[in-house]
């Protein structure tokens, strides 16, 4: 080559060192670092909000799992028992025994305080009745010293937790008087009050305003359980059958494309729309019982189906076509190829999708409001069938219900309910992740 311009000084490139960044590389590396920083900042922000949320939920909700109880050593002699049973006002006598026992115990601990039976009833409920029925059920304990345990009223509970103070009380009412604070302090000083795990919150049913502390989430957990049963039994077979047909058998034409688009759209329909649809179709048209988990389950099935169909189709698609070829190649029919080979390989994905769909349905509230599953439910269903047909509530609806009530105890219960709901959701999602990890197959 003789072209002079090639060797001209204009074209000559300065010798470049690999150890020094040139301007262009510097700029590129800077933008790379910047992008990383954005990512880390985004994740940190997300984590911060998550932690703030968890902290708020736990701090507000955990007290719902604790319950103050008063434990008093108590002895009922045979003479006392006979005397009380012969009297006109039997429970009043038992109450007096208890008060004597309580003040003796406190005196033994060096605490002096005067109180009457009304104060005891305000703080501990109808003690006399409780004692009497205890000894009726356990007659062998007459004459022995027992540790008698009594659930304290919700105001005692809240006073001890610090959410109810002397300043909050104005004048006093039939539920609480200013001097009751002194009695609580005295019992606390005598070491009679302790905090125990509130089983009643897990197993109990909803209560009215006169006993907010006794409200439990048990019945609505059962309502949610029956709904999930309906959702699982209906949406899994229908969803899987529909996706197998669409993915493996249906001809690809405008009609199936149309169905596909509609399924994708259904997954994005607001849940309240499904609720009003359920109200119109299942209750007003088909006359199914109102507020029943059966109807709730049917509505949630409609909501869950698109999720299950979409995830099932995705996992069917993920099975390599070579497996289908292999099965067809040895003379399996289309259906044999799908059921013997494709479906087992897609099963973990289908299961994961189903569990995630169920978790979604479990947390759904809006459709339940419309079909009336937000009522006051104060009892468990008696039989399995009644579980489907009797009016019931569901965990999220119960939370909504409690949050709407004025008593601060119910607000605490609502937060506690959120913890229960979140525990269920976390458990289900964990199961989904474990299933996916364990059965996922790689080619």
């Amino acid at each position, binding site marked *: 080559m003789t072209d002079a311009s090639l060797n001209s000084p204009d074209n000559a490139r300065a010798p470049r060192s690999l150890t020094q960044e040139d301007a262009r590389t510097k700029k590129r590396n800077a933008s790379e670092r910047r992008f990383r920083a954005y990512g880390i900042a985004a994740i940190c922000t997300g984590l911060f909000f998550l932690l703030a949320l968890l902290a708020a939920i736990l701090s507000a909700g955990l007290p719902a799992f604790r319950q103050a109880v008063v434990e008093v050593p108590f002895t009922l002699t045979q003479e006392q028992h006979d005397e009380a049973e012969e009297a006109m006002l039997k429970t009043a006598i038992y109450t007096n025994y208890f008060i004597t026992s309580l003040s003796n115990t406190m005196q033994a601990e060096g605490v002096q305080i005067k109180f009457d039976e009304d104060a005891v009833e305000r703080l501990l409920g109808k003690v006399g009745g409780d004692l009497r029925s205890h000894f009726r059920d356990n007659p062998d304990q007459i004459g022995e010293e027992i540790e008698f345990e009594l659930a304290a009223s919700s105001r005692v509970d809240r006073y001890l937790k610090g959410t109810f103070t002397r300043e909050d009380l104005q004048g006093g009412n039939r539920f609480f008087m200013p001097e009751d604070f002194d009695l609580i302090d005295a019992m606390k000083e005598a070491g009679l009050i302790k905090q125990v795990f509130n089983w009643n919150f897990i197993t109990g049913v909803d209560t009215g305003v006169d006993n907010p502390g006794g409200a439990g989430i048990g019945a609505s957990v059962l309502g949610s359980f029956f709904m999930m049963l309906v959702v699982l039994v209906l949406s899994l077979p229908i969803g899987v059958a529909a996706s197998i047909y669409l993915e493996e058998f249906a001809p*690809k034409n405008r009609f199936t494309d149309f169905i596909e688009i509609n399924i994708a759209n259904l997954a994005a329909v607001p849940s309240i729309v499904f609720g009003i649809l359920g109200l119109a179709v299942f209750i007003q048209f088909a006359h199914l019982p109102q507020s029943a988990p059966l109807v709730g389950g049917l509505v949630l099935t409609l909501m869950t189906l698109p999720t299950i169909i979409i995830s099932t189709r995705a996992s069917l698609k993920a099975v390599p076509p070579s*497996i289908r*070829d*292999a*099965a*067809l*190649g*040895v*003379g399996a029919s289309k259906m044999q190829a799908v059921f*013997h080979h494709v479906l087992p390989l897609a099963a973990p994905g289908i299961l994961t999708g189903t569990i995630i769909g169920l978790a979604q349905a479990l947390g759904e509230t809006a459709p339940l409001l419309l079909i009336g599953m937000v009522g006051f439910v104060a009892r468990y269903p008696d039989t399995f069938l009644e579980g489907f047909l009797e009016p019931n509530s569901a965990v999220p609806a119960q939370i909504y219900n409690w949050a709407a009530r004025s008593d601060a105890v119910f607000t605490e219960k609502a937060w506690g309910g959120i913890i229960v709901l979140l525990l269920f959701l976390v458990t289900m999602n964990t199961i989904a992740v474990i299933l996916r990890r364990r059965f996922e197959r790689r080619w």
Partner: protein
Amino acid sequence: MNDMRIVERDVQQNDVKIAAKGVQVYYGDNHAIKDVDVEIEDKTVTAFIGPSGCGKSTFLRCINRMNDTIDVCRVVGDIHIDGEDIYDPKVDPVQLRAKVGMVFQKPNPFPKSIYDNVAYGPRIHGLAKNKAELDELVEKSLRRGAIWDEVKDRLDAPGTGLSGGQQQRLCIARAVATEPEVLLMDEPCSALDPIATAQVEELIDELRQSYSVVIVTHSMQQAARVSQKTAFFHLGNLVEYGETGQIFTNPNDPRTESYITGRIG
């Protein structure tokens, strides 16, 4: 086997097993196979060679109607196996595929045990009456696939855990287990290393005793080594079909010669 022996290979005439006449295949608007006539003999290895996209695999898949699974694919013309038209509406493609086995390009064992891989075909076709018969059939097929000695102690191990060459021989054993009459092989060695390839080629030569084998291959050396008859496809046309020795040493068509000498393809 040795390339040098191509010319000396004795050529004998066998019965015609597969007869194709005027076969056209369309993928939508794309005319993939143009008017192919070919007669494939029994107990013979027939190789289809040609550049990529020439339609050799497509034609192979017509023989056991695997193209039926592709929606846009349309096949025109006649293909007869033992004098029966396989595109007759009365023919059940599932029965056909039991008679015409297929081995694919990529080894594709089922993610099940070695035993179940082989036993699957006989099970769905009801070829074995009881467990003992099935065991026997599985052993026979694995022996035919020249893999029995390597796997006889671990029949319960997953088929996907074998090496590539073993997997492909397992797939051949699986195809053989349904007792087919024709064995189609779609580039069976393209995913294998030279040693595994040699094993599979040896196996193909043995299989010739019992089956009519049709093999699609990219490697001309492989076609020369294993086949008695060779068909050269180019742009959807069957350019030349004849004795392997003659195709490789003295082709009639200039296109065949160009391909064999490496000028097209």
